[in-house]
């Protein structure tokens, strides 16, 4: 299957970064010029909304709609708060996800240009890129790109004579998965503990330092210049179904050729798998997590699923970040689940009880099952956790995310998991269990 390269069109085979001269030679910053000259500040947002761009950070929220929540001060400049912020989420901690990294390392100006247009569209005067701590290369390249853009007048005061001002700052994360959750990210940026915030209020009303703020994923923002430059119709035509545009897909795990590739949204799951060389070593597919560690399993029966937001949703999972983790038929599912839940238990921010104390218990039960120390009732206890760590029960989406693969695992591989409980295991009293069967 041929790739549709939009976001990755400038990425070099050797991954050498595209600096500003090459970027401009290859059509870069044209969109910015167009946005500033052809559109008023309030006219870019509707364009994005019309294009149907949805968030690439995992939740898939329509970007133009999110932007429309931002308060506007054009008619009441006196009430303009001290700052309005755009924050780019470059934390990319989702297990199996490495798409934003490729963009930031290989084509940093694409993100910078996207940010300038996005900031213009939402009325922001300050922008932060919150970068995963390990992404040192991204930081270096982005910083150089920012400096280059400054030197050329794309950043700073009165950008290209439009009267629009913007500063961009990079912030390296101290490194927790929860920092990728947009409201925890804002807390972290403020120098507080990375604990999520309750919504409402949404960041548009009270975000970074209590000011109006929009948070978007790196890939989301990179779509913006292309939409502005080539128009809504062009953008919509890139997708196979309802969702327009392209998506960077990725694959890791038991595929023959792990990596990244860009396709129009709605491409069939089977075709994507095939692009990555299918299952390695001639084995068969057991299941895969289609969009990162917190998306529920899809199985061989789902290979015809159109890979867009609604399509994957209908199959019982989520498109997420569209970077799949693939397991062959010889993978014991309990190990997969245990590793995942270990990650989520460890990355719990510790704020709410179900997640903080429930996830470690889940992990320990999975360890017990794996080591042949399961007891009758363990599977039901896992079910109970799936139920009581679900949306609304916990403070943020971290724990429900952690339950995604567990719930699907219990559904698709229930017999395999139940079989791990030794036939002669009985339910021990608490004291007996602690002595005989410690987890």
């Amino acid at each position, binding site marked *: 299957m041929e790739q549709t390269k939009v976001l990755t069109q400038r990425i070099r085979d050797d991954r050498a970064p595209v600096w500003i001269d090459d970027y401009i030679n290859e059509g870069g910053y044209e969109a910015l010029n167009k946005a500033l000259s052809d559109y008023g500040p309030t006219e870019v947002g509707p364009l994005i909304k019309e294009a149907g761009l949805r968030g690439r950070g995992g939740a898939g929220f329509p970007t133009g709609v999110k932007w429309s929540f931002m308060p506007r001060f054009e008619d009441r400049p006196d009430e303009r708060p001290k700052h309005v912020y755009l924050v780019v989420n470059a934390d990319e901690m989702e297990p199996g996800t490495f798409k934003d990294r490729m963009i930031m390392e290989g084509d940093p100006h694409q993100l910078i240009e996207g940010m300038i247009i996005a900031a213009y569209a939402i009325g922001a005067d300050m922008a932060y890129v919150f970068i995963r701590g390990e992404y040192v290369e991204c930081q270096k390249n982005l910083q150089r790109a920012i400096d280059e853009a400054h030197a050329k007048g794309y950043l700073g005061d009165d950008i290209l004579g439009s009267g629009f001002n913007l500063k961009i700052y990079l912030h390296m994360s101290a490194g*927790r998965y929860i920092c990728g959750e947009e409201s925890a990210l804002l807390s972290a940026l403020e120098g507080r*503990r990375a604990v999520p*915030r*309750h919504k*409402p*209020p949404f960041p548009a*009303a*009270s975000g970074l*330092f*209590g000011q109006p703020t929009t948070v978007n994923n790196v890939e989301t923002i990179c779509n913006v210049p292309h939409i502005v430059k080539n128009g809504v119709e062009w953008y919509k035509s890139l997708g196979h179904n309802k969702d327009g545009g392209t998506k960077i897909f990725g694959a890791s795990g038991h595929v023959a050729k792990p990596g990244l590739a860009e396709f129009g949204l709605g491409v069939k799951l089977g075709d994507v798998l095939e692009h990555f060389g299918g299952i390695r070593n001639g084995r068969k597919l057991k299941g895969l997590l289609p969009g990162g560690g917190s998306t529920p399993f899809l199985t061989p029966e789902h290979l015809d699923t159109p890979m867009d937001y609604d399509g994957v949703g209908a199959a019982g999972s989520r498109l997420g970040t569209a970077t799949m983790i693939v397991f062959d038929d010889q993978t014991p599912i309990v190990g997969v689940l245990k590793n995942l839940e270990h990650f989520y*238990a*460890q*990355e*719990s*921010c*510790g*704020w*709410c*009880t*179900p997640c*903080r*104390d*429930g*996830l*470690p*218990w889940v992990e*320990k039960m999975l360890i017990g099952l794996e080591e042949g120390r399961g007891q009758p*009732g363990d599977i039901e*206890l896992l079910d*109970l956790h799936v139920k*009581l760590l679900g949306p*609304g*029960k*916990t*403070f943020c989406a971290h724990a429900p995310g952690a339950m995604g693969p567990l719930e699907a695992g219990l559904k698709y591989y229930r017999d395999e998991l139940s079989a791990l409980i030794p036939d002669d295991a009985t339910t*021990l009293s*608490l004291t007996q*269990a*602690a002595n005989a*069967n*410690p*987890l």
Partner: protein
Amino acid sequence: MAHITIDGREYDVDDTENLLAVALSKGFDLPYFCWHPELHSVGACRQCAVKSYRNDEDEKGMVVMACMTPCSDGGRFEIDDEEAAEMRAQVIEWLMTNHPHDCPVCEEGGECHLQDMTLMTGHTQRRYRGAKRTHTNQDLGPFINHEMNRCIACYRCVRYYRDYADGDDLRALGSHNNVYFGRERDGAFDNEFSGNLVEVCPTGVFTDKTLGAHYNRKWDMQNAPGICTHCSLGCNTSPGSRQGVLKRIQNRFHGEINHYFLCDRGRFGAGFVNRDDRPRQPLVRNADGVLEPRDMDAMRATMEEVLAATTGMIGVGSPRASLEDNYALRNLVGADFFTTGMSAHDQAASLAGKAALEAHAERIATLREVESCDAVLVLGEDVTQTAPRVALSLRQARRNRHLELAAQNKIPKWHARAVRDIGQYNNSPIFSATTQATRLDDIVIEPQRLRPDGIAELGFAIAHALDNTAPAVKQLDDDTQALVDSIAATLKGAKKPLIVAGTSLGDPAIVHAANNAMKALAAANAEARLFVTFAEANSLGLAMMDAPDIEQAFTAIENGTADTLVVMQNCLYERAPKARVDAVVKKAKNVIVMDHSLNRTVGEAATHVLPAGSFAEADGTLVNNEGRAQRFFQVFIPDAPMQEGWRWAADLADVAGRDPEWAGMDDIIDAIVADYPALAGIKDAAPSQSFRKFGMRFPRSPHRYAARTALYANVNVRERRPTVDADSPLSYSMEGYYGEGQPPSTLAFAWSPGWDSNQAAITRFQDEVGGHLKGGDPGTRLITPGTDTAFAPADVTRVDGWQAVPMYHIFGSESQSARAEAIAERMPEPVFRVNAEGAKTLGITPGNDLSLTIDGETHAFPLDVDPSLPDQTIAVPVGMHGVCGVRLPVGVEPK
């Protein structure tokens, strides 16, 4: 208003509230941890799960957290719902995966919110079979014990300490199920309100170390409604005792004063009651200067001789003793020979304070009202050190700006983190002028550091800027004038401006200035409020007793019109320089002292000592800084012959042949009211001795009070008949009426079925959770509007050259608490402070001693540099850790 349904019952409720608060107010038993009536909602613990239905058709409903759910009109909620109940029980089971279950050895046991909630959710059997994580504990100093393994990570401690009390040295550290609540390293908490952690923490992580030193369970304590005696604010306390030992001080909710929180001086300062060196027998000083015990008969005979031979008695009352104790002394010595026991300058300042309150009788702020003010001017007072609890209230006042911003963005007031997040560093304006940097400066706009005369002038100038008929001060420089104008404009623009001033700098001009500013403000804004702090727990009460200051007592002895000083719970050395007191004592034939502590007067000056009860061993009435008369009750009966100060004074009057025939408190209160119509309100401060509810008294002990019959088994195995209290309608037992309809002033402890912890159980006694006590918050306001409505002249007393100003410390400056072991450990080393220029002029390297003569007395302390001090100004540590009895501010000539 919103019409909602909870468990099928319909209510009209305040739609600005959250569902948890409303459900608790309506009497539902809905478990919670992270929510607190003062800290509000954050949705962390997930304990308050209920079912919410979208509309009448919705049958499935959705589990939501009550504390994060607004009460919107038409809301339909079920607490009694299977799925919600399952969630609530599961939250406990999760918490129990790491909780050590060490209730038997845990000091929280019996008043533990976690125990209560566990029972309430019905969780009984833990299914988790893994190992529990363990933490290391920290040494947090003399006040608080730390046992982190019991933590359930509800985040209340950090929310209280950091977000409410603005402390910095307690943090949530670590993450996932390894969060740790502690300091970076071992050491005492830096914040003056840290003790509230022991009540805010719903488990046994933070417990009262002073209770732990002689521990017993809540249900084994005999309590009484108490009033803190360590400053003028009159916070309500619940002292607990057992077998004649004062075990601890707990907060006693008062909706207008302290509500849920005390300061550390108030909570940990009562240890003086248990000191071994207290006088417990009548004592007479022998020829060798040693105090010898006497039995009662011998003492009576001695006192008969003394009183028969005296050529004149002069009484020294006390601003830290009750009205009853003072009045009984006045009765003994005669109205013309009674003095207030306050020094001349303290009395002058206190009278100025009283006059200011009278001028603004309708505008006197309670602590609670302080919290609702949106612009504040503090004149002179370093409140954190002199009237600590109001500092905590001012910290809430500055958050009104956060609430305003929240309201503008439709964020409900209970949404604690959202309010904080939108508030950030935007505070309601607080201005302050003090002699040096204070612990409040972090929330003060451009803190001003001036000498007392400068502070008064600033106040007068602001008054003049607010109303040009108020007297002006001399020409101000441009910067100062600009500041004055901006403060005046801010106060004028506020919805509810507040002026805070006090007597601690001993300069009445500061209070006059505050009075003028208040007058100028009040003319335009009826909401404007005044808050005046006084030196001691009953300073205002004594100011209302209309008697001369202690000078008159000293001169009476000096000029020979009297030969006998009769002192009621006061230390002469705190009121005048040592040389002066020594001379007076030497000249006096008798110094008869009724006191509970071995202070310097008892130890060095008294010829006769009568062991009086402390606040814990007596009843009495105190008038706090807002003019509220409040009654405290005897917590336990001291061993005879110790008795109340007023009973000693009455006994002495009897010895003198003038038995006042007071059978109990009611009689002496009647006598006070007859002499002082202005004090008539004290009669209503609490019900009389004969008051009963359904024929019953009110218990001092919770009904599970254990082992009563065994208490005195070493003496007699028969159960003793509890002593009958002749002074109050309280019983010395667990018998009596407790609960709904009990006069709030008689509530000795807080408990209600299913709710054993102090901060949660009180809900059942409040009109709404966190609001006011049902039946009205205790105490009666005594201040009546004065007739003097004129502006005070803008007169200040200027000192040229060096001036010594007082420097207070929460631990040390108040003499009773300074005798408590825990407080003594936290008292600072005494130092003199000057600015760097001053140190240079004096030619003293910081750290070396400065020897300074103040008021004729010479003291040597190390010199410390405080860059905030005005030029030529020496800050002098006043109190038990520094100097007592000197007049400050005063001109000095350091060499």
